[in-house]
């Protein structure tokens, strides 16, 4: 079978046994992302300090392997980051999935770069990120 470099071990593993799934008792912010096209759903729970720096993120994801792995890798990656840093990582990921080239510093998230050949699936990887950024923006507005 022709496999796909999209479904690398890390994606399959994180989808199957996520490390950051669940709720978070100390969460101060919550958000939900829904993809109306496929019904995929991500609930985020985050602990964010008064300077807007993320402590921890947990996710509850009902979706495909791409979406679930993206949520889990995101939770890991944004720990200790502030909103501006989260937006920079998000932008780098968006560039990677559009072009297939992973910008420097994208790290493990570059596993999603092959999505540029599966345009209909880009939203699956971006869903947790859009939910997170909406959540951080809402927090700032408050």
């Amino acid at each position, binding site marked *: 079978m*022709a496999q*796909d470099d999209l479904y690398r071990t890390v994606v*399959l593993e994180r989808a199957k046994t996520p490390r950051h799934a669940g709720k978070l008792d100390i969460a101060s912010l919550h958000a939900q992302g829904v993809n109306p096209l*496929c*019904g*995929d759903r991500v609930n985020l729970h985050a602990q964010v300090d008064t300077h807007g720096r993320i402590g921890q993120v947990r996710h509850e994801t009902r*979706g*495909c*392997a*791409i979406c679930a792995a993206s949520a889990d890798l995101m939770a890991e990656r944004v720990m200790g980051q502030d909103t501006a840093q989260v937006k920079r990582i998000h932008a780098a990921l968006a560039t990677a999935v559009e072009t297939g080239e992973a910008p420097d510093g994208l790290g493990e998230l570059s596993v999603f770069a092959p999505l540029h050949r599966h345009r209909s699936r880009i939203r699956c990887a971006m869903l947790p990120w859009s939910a997170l950024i909406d959540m951080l923006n809402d927090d700032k507005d408050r």
Partner: protein
Amino acid sequence: MMDQMVTGKTDAGNSLRHVRADFPILSQKVHGKDLVFLDSAASAQKPRQVIDSMADTMRTQYANIHRGLYWMSERTTEAYEAVRDQVAAFLGAGAREEIVFTRNSTEAINLVAHSYGSLLRPGQVVLVSEMEHHANLVPWQMLRERMGIELRVTPVTDDGALDMDALGRNLSDGRVALVAITHMSNVLGTITDARAISDMAHAAGAKVLFDGSQLAVHRRVNVRELDADFYVVTGHKLYGPTGIGVLWARREILEEMPPFLGGGDMIASVSFERSTWAHVPHKFEAGTPAIIETIGLGAALSYIESIGFDRIGAHEDALTAHALKVLGQVSGLKVVGTAPQRGGVISFTMADVHPHDIATLLDRNGIAVRAGHHCAEPLMRRLGLSATARASFGIYTTPEEIDMLAATLEQIRGFFV
């Protein structure tokens, strides 16, 4: 070609193998693999007879219709109107005036909802089923908002058949004005007993509309034998082009219905004080229609008729039986919808593998299936699912393609456990 058809084996879904040569797209490669196209229920591929008829029209014989007083326009009008006769024969209609051209089935249903719907009164009921495509649900919800009608839903049974007892109960208060139900589900493959539904609807004083978008591709339709009042089909699933669909309705109903869209072609006379409407069906065909697409639809119907529904039905029944057997052997695979009367549309889930991951990985192997809610979200909710993968067959589908699907699914499954 006829010889081949007569002598061709009819077993195991091989009897129509020769038609593949008519579909240029089937020789395309996808990701370096032969295309295995198993998404005909979303839209069918087009034979060269359709492609050529449209290109030839544009090359040799094209002008606007119904208005030009010159040779080209008259010839194009004739070609366009000849398709109305063809469609009337294809559906077993009583008269060519009963055939209204629309953009697709969605527009045909919206036409009925707006026009016939405007004759309904608050408190009257439109009755749909739980397995409708959004095209046969949302227009009625919109009518409910406009007109204060009630929208009632008849459930499906656990195996995916229409619950006929519940249909009877839903009809029993005599308030149902219209039953609008699919003739074949695009998710479950279920074929409904249209004649029985018509009889029940009529006995309760209701009219009946069938969404034949899927069924008309696979079985001969005869609207008079079904005793239907409205029937809709969409050209692009019938091996024809996009942009052309059909509403059939009984002439006396069409005559009673007000126009849908206003403009050129649908009027008898126009003044600033008032306009009068053209006769049916032109009353419902405002503006320049999809001339080239209509001619393409005519070519598609000729093509289908040249094969014949006896062969098409036998081919698809054999393929469906084969598919249910081999898919049933894939570990963790569950077919969604097992009604006894069914056609070549098979939805499935596979253990914990999300349907979108299934579709992407099949695509890497050249196999095109659909994954998602298939424009039937309420049905998905009823089934407790957010999505399924769906393989659907056409006249060009072969048993080997289905075997390849099953084998690749088995590999995908192995990959995820």
